[in-house]
């Protein structure tokens, strides 16, 4: 696929611009219509049960508050490993996502569960810090045991057309990650246009992202279906061009089981079933998990449970 296979020979601003602006455009109305059409898929009974368990296993259970405490983080980790104390058949979540200073606490709390800790880094959420601070932020989180780093890109640089700066930051953070997986947050709500979302996706993948992620959760709109659709198209095209599968993580605004299942439908019919694994698709969320659990109970018992039957962490 010529549009996506052309890797810039020398990484320069000029070469990156030529490459990114040579990608096929995105028609906003058409992209929205496709996402809307897929949102009408009706996932019922056995398909819904399978989808709920898959979605639970993809949740990056997240707390990213100024008021976070070790106690709150530990409580979240217990929930991550055992989402429903009344039902041990519920799968554990994909990861727990915290601020860098809470990584050690979370790693300790999750020891033996097989659940990794993801840490936001690089002066999350604004990303407005000197490069050395961002790298130190990253190294420290990795040193404390983070298996995944969720970095933010410099949206200002991207919007100003300084693609090389964005590229180099991602590449540097990737290097600082070592073995940790790198999720690159595009903050699509600030990129505004779908053309930008597509370009930023490809830029991040070329620079070394293991995952591309929609949002910090601190900016509205966060993960919308059309944005996730475009990012899924990007990873599909990147795979076709390079053979490498990059993951996608919508984050922010996904609160209900219906939202989660719509995302899975999008994955299934855009990137394809190969992406229907926590290794390649995650959902960044906090309140979603309880709704998934409630719907799971509803499906297996036929009665609607109340929110007090699920832990509030």
């Amino acid at each position, binding site marked *: 696929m010529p549009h996506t296979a052309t890797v810039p020979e020398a990484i320069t601003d000029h070469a990156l611009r030529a490459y990114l602006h040579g990608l096929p455009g995105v*028609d*906003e*109305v*058409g992209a*929205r219509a496709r996402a809307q059409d897929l949102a009408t898929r009706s996932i019922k009974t056995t398909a819904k049960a399978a989808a709920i368990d898959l979605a639970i296993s993809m949740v990056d259970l997240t707390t990213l508050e100024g008021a976070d405490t070790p106690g709150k983080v530990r409580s979240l980790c217990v929930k991550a490993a055992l989402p429903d104390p009344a039902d041990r058949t519920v799968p554990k979540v994909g990861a727990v996502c915290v601020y860098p200073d809470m990584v050690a606490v979370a790693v300790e709390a999750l020891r033996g569960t097989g659940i990794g800790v993801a840490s936001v880094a690089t002066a999350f959420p604004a990303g407005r810090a000197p490069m050395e601070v961002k790298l130190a932020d990253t190294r420290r989180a990795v040193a404390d045991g983070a298996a995944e780093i969720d970095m933010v890109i410099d949206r200002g640089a991207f919007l100003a057309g300084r693609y090389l700066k964005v590229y180099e930051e991602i590449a540097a953070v990737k290097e600082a990650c070592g073995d940790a997986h790198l999720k690159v947050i595009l903050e699509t709500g600030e990129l*505004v*246009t*779908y053309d930008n979302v597509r370009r930023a996706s490809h830029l991040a993948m070329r620079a070394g992202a293991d995952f591309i992620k929609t949002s910090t959760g601190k900016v509205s709109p966060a993960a919308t279906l059309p944005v996730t659709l475009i990012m899924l198209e990007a990873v599909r095209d990147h795979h076709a061009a390079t053979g490498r599968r990059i993951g996608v993580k919508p984050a922010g605004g996904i609160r209900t089981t219906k939202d989660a299942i719509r995302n899975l439908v999008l994955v299934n019919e855009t990137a394809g079933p190969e992406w229907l694994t926590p290794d390649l698709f995650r959902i960044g969320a906090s309140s979603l998990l309880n709704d998934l659990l409630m719907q799971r109970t509803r499906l297996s018992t036929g009665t609607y449970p109340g929110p007090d039957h699920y832990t509030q962490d």
Partner: protein
Amino acid sequence: MAERRDGGKRKNEGAADGGATENRTTATKADVPARIAVRKTYKLYLGGAFPRSESGRSHPVTSADGAHLANASLASRKDARDAVVAARKAFGGWSGRTAYNRGQILYRIAEVLEGRHAQFADQLVAALGVSRAEADRYVSAAVDRWVHYAGWTDKFAQVIGGSNPVSGPYYNHSTPEPTGVVVVFAPQGAPLLGLTSVLAPVIATGNTAVVVSSESAPLASIDLAEVLATSDVPGGVVNVLTGKAGEIGPHLASHADVDALDLTGAGESAVDFERAAAATLTRVLRPGPEADGGEDAWLDTDPGTSRLTPFLETKTVWHPVGM
């Protein structure tokens, strides 16, 4: 109607060959005229040229009181075919001109026609047997009709087209476009004003025309063709066939490359032509009440859009509106 045949293929030698046989060997000196009039040979108007019928036929045209006026070409099936080819060839260029440019050209027709007022008035007096005053009125009205339609060229799209407020994020716009090649059966008893009234709206909107002239009074149509030919109307935009509608009409009505018919002057053949047109869904404008009313029926100074819209297609374009 009588018919003559000179047996030749079409010659494109222009108007230089006279048919004069005025000199009589028996004339006395006193009978010798001071000057012999140069008569006009009436030919067809095809693709911007004035050829004779390829069939070599002509037919005599007489005045209202039966006097011989001239011989007009008697167009054949093949002439009709050639006319459609010429009109089709001219369509892209003519419809692609700016509306302003078409308006300028139609106005130019009015200017040139005005300059030949006397010639046309004479022609009408002879052809219709009307008074000079009546003939003047018709010629003036014909000039004014061209002016009227010259003004329509860059307005009908605004009057007829427009934007459509669809329920969704789409720009949606409808524009009238010319139908294509229109065969105009000119009104029988209205050789100038009637012809102008049916022809001008057809070409004002960017169509090209094949005119089948009034059978009994065809001379004005060829005179008008001369006006068109000297008014910057591109060749092929208007093609004029004189002859018998009943002979060439069926071929034009059923011709697959004809897009529309104006049956105003088709008389009793109108129904047959409409039926023939059905085979290729050719648009049809049926004869209206003016059809048989002579030039007087066309004196209304505000014909409105009723003769513009039948030869327009509405094209609607959608486009999403997004960032």
